């Protein structure tokens, strides 16, 4: 047939890729003094070019977002490291700047934060392999009864709980698989269907905030603020509970139930064999160790290797399971860390922030402003990519502005940005959980947007108030 013709369809990808190549190339080639940042060095100019390449690639997505991350690391090695191409190693001595050590750039692929996530992946893979997720869901859902509103609360609580330890997408997929057979029995006209289907991705996005390993943006945030697992959960879990309740109320109000009763059937038969018990015990012990680091002194990153070691030693995770690890998520985060490292080490982040006049903004307004920017961006692009792009700049902003100190300094503004990144959930493209919910055909885009924007804004304001409170109690003085 017209097979050959079909191959020649023009693609918008190529145009996007061209923009993402040409703009950074232009920045790389222009004379240094064209860029209006005082004190800028040649090395910093190259970092700006890499930053623009990353930003355009992450926003336009002509290539997968994890590919962009690896490209960031590769370009840094080629352009700004001490193993760079020879012509790039020297320049005018007065304005050249410092090259980075190549080992520091490569080390981002195995940074402690990456290993923390690897530990989280091991927990999640073992839990799903031995069916712990389904068994737990079956047990935990029971007390929520059969009233639609309480069942929805139950679904949301369990989704959020799961997504604290497994990926938001996996938590959503697992809970939607529990919900979808029941939906087939519910009246098509009932608006409550929308509430139930939206409750799951929203709870997954929100629950991801609960622990450092819940969602990749948290990892990027942790790169700029030194918090233990327990310190993170201390404020994140109460926030998750509050915003979950708020979302529940919003969904009830927007999409009221007509159905009187809904019965979930979870086919989870508890298993009891050595390996299943070992998974339960290791899971519990790891969390316990994470929360008690003050007592034993081992940091969160090292504890993350407990499940890795135990599961491999006991052959609970075998070499086939190892191939299931989402390397693309780890590398996506690595690229973000590498980008931030380059901006900080070369001095670009500081130069950039000093060249912008923030004097018109009060600290509180600034925190709200960056939160809003992050929230808006996260609605249209990957949450992790948003964090990758914004956090290096925001963190520099926090460190270099003395007025922010009274407001919790860099810590508060970094946390605001990190949390705002996970609150973007108003469109199917905002997050994979949203996309899955939309694909059920139960939710149209306006409904998702209405609820998602409302919850995003409530979350932003609520977290802002929470930061105020945390600052009052001296939280940021102790970290």
């Amino acid at each position, binding site marked *: 047939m017209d*097979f050959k013709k*079909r191959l020649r369809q023009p693609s918008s990808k190529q145009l996007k890729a061209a923009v993402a190549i040409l703009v950074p190339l232009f920045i790389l080639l222009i004379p240094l003094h064209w860029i209006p940042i005082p004190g800028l060095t040649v090395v910093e100019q190259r970092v700006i070019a890499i930053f623009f390449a990353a930003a355009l690639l992450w926003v336009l997505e002509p290539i997968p977002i994890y590919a962009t991350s690896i490209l960031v690391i590769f370009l840094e090695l080629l352009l700004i490291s001490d193993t760079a191409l020879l012509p790039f190693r020297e320049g005018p001595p007065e304005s050249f700047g410092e090259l980075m050590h190549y080992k520091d750039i490569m080390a981002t692929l195995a940074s402690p934060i990456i290993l923390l996530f690897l530990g989280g992946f091991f927990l999640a893979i073992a839990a799903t*392999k031995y069916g712990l*997720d389904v068994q737990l869901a079956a047990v935990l859902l029971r007390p929520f009864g059969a009233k639609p509103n309480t069942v929805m609360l139950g679904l949301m609580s369990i989704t959020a709980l799961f997504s604290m330890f497994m990926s938001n997408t996996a938590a959503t997929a697992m809970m939607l698989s529990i919900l979808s057979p029941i939906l087939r029995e519910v009246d098509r006209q009932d608006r409550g269907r929308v509430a139930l289907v939206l409750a799951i991705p929203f709870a997954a996005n929100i629950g991801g905030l609960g622990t450092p390993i819940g969602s990749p943006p948290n990892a990027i945030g942790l790169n700029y603020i030194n918090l233990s697992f327990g310190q993170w959960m201390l404020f994140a879990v109460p926030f998750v509970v509050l915003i979950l309740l708020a979302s529940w109320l919003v969904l009830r109000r927007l999409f009221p139930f007509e159905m009187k009763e809904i019965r979930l059937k979870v086919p989870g038969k508890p298993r009891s064999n050595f390996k299943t018990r070992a998974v339960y015990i290791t899971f519990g012990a790891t969390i316990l160790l994470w929360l008690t680091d003050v007592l034993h002194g081992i940091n969160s990153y090292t504890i993350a290797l407990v499940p890795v070691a135990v599961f491999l030693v006991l052959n609970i995770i075998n070499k086939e399971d190892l191939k*299931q690890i989402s390397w693309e998520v780890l590398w996506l985060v690595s690229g973000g860390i590498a980008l931030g490292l380059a901006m900080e080490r070369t001095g670009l982040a500081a130069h950039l922030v000093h060249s912008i006049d923030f004097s018109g903004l009060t600290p509180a307004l600034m925190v709200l402003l960056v939160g809003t920017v992050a929230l808006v961006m996260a609605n249209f692009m990957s949450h992790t990519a948003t964090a990758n792009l914004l956090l290096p700049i925001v963190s520099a902003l926090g460190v270099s502005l003395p007025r922010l100190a009274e407001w919790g300094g860099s810590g508060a503004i970094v946390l605001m940005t990190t949390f705002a990144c996970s609150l973007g959930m108003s469109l199917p493209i905002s997050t994979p959980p949203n996309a899955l919910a939309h694909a059920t055909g139960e939710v149209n885009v306006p409904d998702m947007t209405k609820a998602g924007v409302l919850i995003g804004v409530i979350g932003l304001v609520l977290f802002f108030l929470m930061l105020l409170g945390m600052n009052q109690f001296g939280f940021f003085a102790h970290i």
Partner: protein
Amino acid sequence: MEKIFLLCIEDQREVLNAVVEDLAIFEEAFPIEECESVAEAITVIEDIYDAGLHLAVVISDHVMPDKNGIDFLVELHQDERFRATKKMLLTGLATHADTINAINNAAIDRYIAKPWDKEMLQGYVRKLLTEYILESGIDYQPYLKWLDQDTLYQKLRKY
């Protein structure tokens, strides 16, 4: 979006049209190649391979003048290049021995008897497409609208 093809082989034009019509719901994302003989199908799959594109599902009739469908599917199964391709037999005229051959040597993924049920055909193709995309590591997100939810959930739960 990657180019992912469906392929139908059926020597009777009107039957071929009926199959393609039933699968029209996938056409927007997954172009359907129509072949009236095994020989034609072989040229098309070679073209698809040469162009570096995906062949997700092959739906083949059994009794055809040039070569029978099961023999073709057995060869396809042994072809390393199309290991991931899903195979479906759509026939009313396969003997017991043919069927055994199809299962054991072609490892067919689905068998549908003629006359077929439209919904069943669509459901199977949807499932097989989903499996192909997930197993081949293709980003499933652009195709969500056409994929089978349950298959997707079972696979994504594992990540």
